[in-house]
């Protein structure tokens, strides 16, 4: 987890409320990713960024938006949280496309 922090680490929220998760890196890596991890599904890519203000959708992007205004920060927003978004969210970084990704410690989100 060195060089990658996620905040908050745990969050409980109610259906319909907005939620923002933050990923911060000190490695100056160009690529950043948001995944969710659920039993039976493994890691699924939500969105990724290949530079400041450059983002693209992943496999499960519906209901999520992202922003990257600085190299070191990548934000994931749930505009209106639903119970199906209860999950563990991981941020990852890599030097380039297809290269090894290094993961943060995760955020456990519970939507009631």
């Amino acid at each position: 987890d060195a060089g990658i922090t996620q905040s908050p680490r745990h969050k409980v929220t109610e259906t319909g409320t907005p939620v923002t998760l933050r990923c911060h890196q000190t490695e100056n890596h160009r690529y950043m990713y948001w995944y969710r991890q659920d039993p039976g599904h493994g890691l699924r890519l939500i969105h990724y960024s290949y530079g400041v203000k450059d983002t693209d959708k992943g496999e499960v992007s519906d209901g999520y938006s992202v922003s990257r205004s600085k190299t070191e920060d990548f934000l994931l927003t749930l505009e209106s949280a639903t119970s199906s978004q209860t999950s563990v969210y991981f941020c990852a970084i890599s030097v380039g496309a297809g290269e090894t990704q290094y993961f943060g410690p995760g955020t456990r989100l519970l939507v009631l």
Partner: protein
Amino acid sequence: GESVGLHLPTLSVQEGDNSIINCAYSNSASDYFIWYKQESGKGPQFIIDIRSNMDKRQGQRVTVLLNKTVKHLSLQIAATQPGDSAVYFCAESNYGGSQGNLIFGKGTKLSVKP
């Protein structure tokens, strides 16, 4: 909450024995492969990687074997220790592909008996 490891295949080994964890990958064009270890409550941790121009690569107590003919990857852990208990999963990448994103397997849970 439910553990991510509950629905995974499990490999149970005795402490000190060697472990072999297998992974079948999907894309014959994939040219870069990575093994990750994930302990309970933590993020995935990089273990070892291998490029498609190699058949074998060794690290400290770990060896990765790549068989491109049958699209198979394996991770061998020598002298397995209780601290090796975790979920292990492989990832593949098409380095020259349009996105170059990693594709992750669902993983195998390794349980080490003392």
